[in-house]
């Protein structure tokens, strides 16, 4: 019996010739990751362990991204404790001005390569599947243990195969593919399973589109979401990292729990209505619903390609007077690239606010929290009740084209309807 991509990565990381779904393994990790939010607890836990030392300072990363630049004294103190721990143990530390949102930042810095196993104390660690790395969210205690031992325990998950074929219409991207996928299987449709994305459409997707898909695998309950690293991923990796990746592929006769097929030719941009990422409809069905805010960027759609997409819509226009728009580049590098390309100027001239990279409003932290009865179109990944602010506010999840088009229209709008 053949093996899936996920099984091959995990077998390699636990030093066995093969592993089986359901098997409990202890696997070596290539990177241990935490933000300030999860890091502060991980540090506390780490300090409780007698005689604990960081297993490899080069493989432990703290990224300050959730409440930074520190939004209040408490955040400042938490970041400070992470900073001091990082100095003491000489681990990799990304602070304000040198950082970005962790999942955008680490591949950009060349810290992740295909075939890696990444244990991150953040549920969206599944993102690294966009480049063929097995990333999975862990808890802070896990992170503390992984920092000391360089390994984590895992139950080998089953895999589900998602095949996308047909011709991808204009204005439809990775975000729409993952939204429609979650609509079809539900928010626990891939519970503790690996979502493996493949098919002719996938082969032609940009890394940013793949990023958005893998990023939201957790919203279907998945352990991780994986793309087999191809030539596109190889080029992406080799431009950023000296470290060679491992380019695993699933075997033809690998065993999958289920297979889903999608003909994307008839797709149009999708939007997830409150209060679940699976509550997905074509944008055309909800077009016209008035909005108060748009947020573009953050981790799910915070790559340069995503900002280009939004800027393409906004160029030479101004957003609706009743709407405010916040643009959040995924990292300092993305910000700089966008600046050099003139995208930031487009945003500012369109009356958008441009923020330093941060998770900020996605989790209702800062930089765009919603008031009661306010409605927001966001390119982020979660729209649970109260996620971005008041419990009576609403978040609609969409791609950057839709978000930008809605900002211009003052209501939910499809870019298809925009005047030329």
């Amino acid at each position, binding site marked *: 019996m053949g093996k899936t991509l996920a099984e091959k990565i995990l077998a390699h990381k636990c030093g066995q010739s093969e592993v089986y779904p359901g098997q*409990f393994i*202890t696997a070596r990790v290539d990177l241990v990751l935490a933000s*300030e*939010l*999860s890091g*502060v*607890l991980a540090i506390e*836990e780490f300090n*409780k*362990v*007698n*005689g*604990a030392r960081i297993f490899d300072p080069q493989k432990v990363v703290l990224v300050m991204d*959730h*409440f930074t630049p*520190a*939004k*209040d004294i*408490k*955040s400042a103190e*938490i970041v400070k404790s992470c900073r001091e721990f990082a100095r003491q143990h000489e681990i990799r530390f990304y602070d304000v001005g040198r950082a970005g949102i962790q999942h955008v930042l680490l591949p950009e810095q060349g810290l992740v390569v295909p075939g890696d196993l990444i244990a991150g*104390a*953040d*549920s969206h660690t599944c993102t690294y599947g966009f480049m063929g790395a097995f990333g999975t*969210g*862990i*808890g*802070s*205690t*896990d992170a*503390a*243990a992984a920092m*000391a*031992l360089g390994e984590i*325990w895992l*139950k080998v998950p089953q895999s589900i195969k998602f095949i996308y074929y047909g011709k991808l219409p204009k204005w439809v991207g990775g975000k729409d593919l993952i939204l429609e996928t979650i609509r079809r299987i539900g*928010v*626990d449709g891939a*519970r*503790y399973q690996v979502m493996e994305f493949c098919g002719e459409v996938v082969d032609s997707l940009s890394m940013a589109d793949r990023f958005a898909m893998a990023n939201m695998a*957790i919203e279907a*309950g998945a352990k991780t979401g994986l793309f087999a690293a191809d030539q596109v991923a190889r080029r992406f990796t080799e431009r950023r990292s000296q470290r060679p990746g491992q380019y695993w592929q699933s075997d033809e006769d690998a065993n999958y729990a289920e297979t889903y097929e999608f003909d994307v030719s008839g797709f149009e941009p999708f939007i997830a209505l409150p209060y*679940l990422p699976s509550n997905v409809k074509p944008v055309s069905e909800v077009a016209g619903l008035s909005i108060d805010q748009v947020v573009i960027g953050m981790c799910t759609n915070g790559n340069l390609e995503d900002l280009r997409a939004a800027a393409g819509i906004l160029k030479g226009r101004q957003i609706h007077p009743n709407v405010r728009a916040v643009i959040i580049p995924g990292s300092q590098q993305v910000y700089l690239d966008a600046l050099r390309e003139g995208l930031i100027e487009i945003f500012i001239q369109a009356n958008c606010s441009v923020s330093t990279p941060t998770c900020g409003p996605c*989790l*209702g*932290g*800062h930089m765009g*929290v*919603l008031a009661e009865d306010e409605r927001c179109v966001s390119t982020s990944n*979660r729209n*649970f*009740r*109260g*996620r*971005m*602010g*008041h*419990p009576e506010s609403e978040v609609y999840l969409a791609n950057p084209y839709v978000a930008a088009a809605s900002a211009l229209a003052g209501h939910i709008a499809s870019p298809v309807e925009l005047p030329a």
Partner: protein
Amino acid sequence: MPLEDRSNLTLSSFLSHQAQAHADRPATEQGDRVITYSDLADQAGRLAAGLQSLGLKAGDRLAVILPNVVEYPIVIFAAAQADLVLVPINVRRSPDEVLARLRKTRPRAIITFADPGEHFGPDHSELALAAAAELADLEHGITIEGPARPGLTPLDDLLSAKASPPVAAARPTDPAAIIHTLGSSGDPRGAVLTHRGLIGNALAMARRLQATPEDVFLGAVPFSNTFGLTATILTALSAGASLACLPRFSAEHAGELLASRPISIFNAVPTMYALLLNHGSHRVGGTPHLRSGIVAGAPCPPELVERIFAELNCRVLLAYGLTEASPCVTCTHIEDGSITASRTVGRPLPGVEIKLVDSGGYPIAAGLEGELCVRGDNVMAGYWDDPAASAQVLDAEGWLHTGDLATIDPDGNVQVIGRQDDVIIRGGFKVYPQTIEMVLRTHPLVREAVVVGVPDLIYGELICACVVLQRPDVNSEDLRAFAAERLADYSAPDRVHVFKALPRRGSGVVHRNYLSQLIRIRGRAWVFGKNIDTDAIIPARRCNTADPRELALYCMEDADPEFIRHMQRGDLIVADSNFGCGSSREVAPLAIKAAGVSAVIAASFARIFFRNAINIGLPILECPSAAAEIQPGDDIEVEPATGTIHNLTNGKTYRAAPFPDFLQQIIDKGGLLAYVEERLAETRTPNHERPTPEEQR
């Protein structure tokens, strides 16, 4: 002169005062036998003369091993009148335990009874004879019932002695009784209690109860301890009330007495009230006269107090005390509001000083938790013949260090939080794990034995022995029987669990708290559905804090607003599949663990929440059928070690998927950090140099 104005009494002068004041009123009763105050004084005087006729002298000890019979008060006052020191011993103690107490106090006489053993364990007259053979000081055995036996004097013979009653010479500060309690290692220690301490305590309790000569007390708690001797016998008599003796408590008997006799005050451990309410007999015959009683001896759940108030129409008082304080230290008032009355043990008795100190012995700031210390006439003179043990608990300023942790609210009401050590309180009886462990370890097939208390709705705690065997040639039931033969019946383990290995802390010491969670968890179920996203809760609670610990306080409340307000320690969570997704990471498990939840029943082993729960040592049982069928509020009992889930509400038993060995290791060690510590130690220490767990201890 009113009795309460006379603080310098001895037991003997106390009785003569009461016999004059209430001469023909009933003092004690049992069945058809009624003894008036003057009869009591008369019989006590005659027995005192009889005891002297045996050659007993002032300061000699008189051991008493009797159930709650009508003769008990006679013996107490006879001992006092003959200037003897009373040594009461519980009839339910095993022969070995009785002998240990006799060896320690070296009595010259023992008063017991010749019950065939059906109700009160061993034949105590046999025991007295056996003890007399072994103990040189023990010259006289006296029995109150049963056939005359060679070597034993019937009590009636002494009561019919012709000599005139002696006049007591003891002073108020002289020892009146030695009552045994257990030290931290489980060895018996005799607290020496003075006349003044006992009477002062009884008078104060009678005032808190607002007891009058019209009251009838039910004598159900053992007279051999201070709750029975001081807070029941002496308290009833100091009010001029009468005392109905109940030789051995059962809910049925107590219910009958409460219905048929005008009993107005029922002192009890919480278990007795719980049994009475659950038995339901009070609903048949009613408790027409019952109005109050002291509840003490073990922590009493507020719900039980509320049930007693509502169902029995009985305004019980919660009290805190200990043998070393004769016993009562604090007690609620009849007029207290319901919160104070059900959730505190009230304020100190008049003449009793209290304070809280930190681990260094320094007084702590108001509102903080500290060790409760007590000073006053009620505090013992010391432990009998054990100056070292006395010095451990009594300081130079006369403070008794109780070992109990407490807080004091701004109104001065005390809340007792727990013990500084591992004592188990089962049905009001203190049980010391070490005693039982020592017995179990004498079994040839037992390699390790650790005893822990687990929560129980009736007994407060049950005794669970966790053993590791040399060979699997003996079963749990045999081990239970083995221990039961060698221990007091209330200290025999309720359950024996066999483990392959016991969870240990990094230092190698067995992790008792975690072990008790593993064995058995019982509580109400809280059911949470899909997609409780703690991320969403940050702003929803207007708590967009960056501090995960602060967030933890809010996250479960948002999931169910009733949760934080109404949950009890030990409650369980039943979680659907996607419970706690998002950045719940540790937040959700930490929050529920901090709130006191002790286990989670989950539909599926999935999501970060579940692995986090395991990693912080919160057992999770994966059982889709239980998760689907359990309703909010169901009474659930789980045994993580066996994967068993009992739904006591719907009567069903479920089997959870067993944990893989791999995870069981982490769980057994009490969480991932202990496992990490051990792994790190392994990499540092070569195998042959690694100490065994025994050596580590």
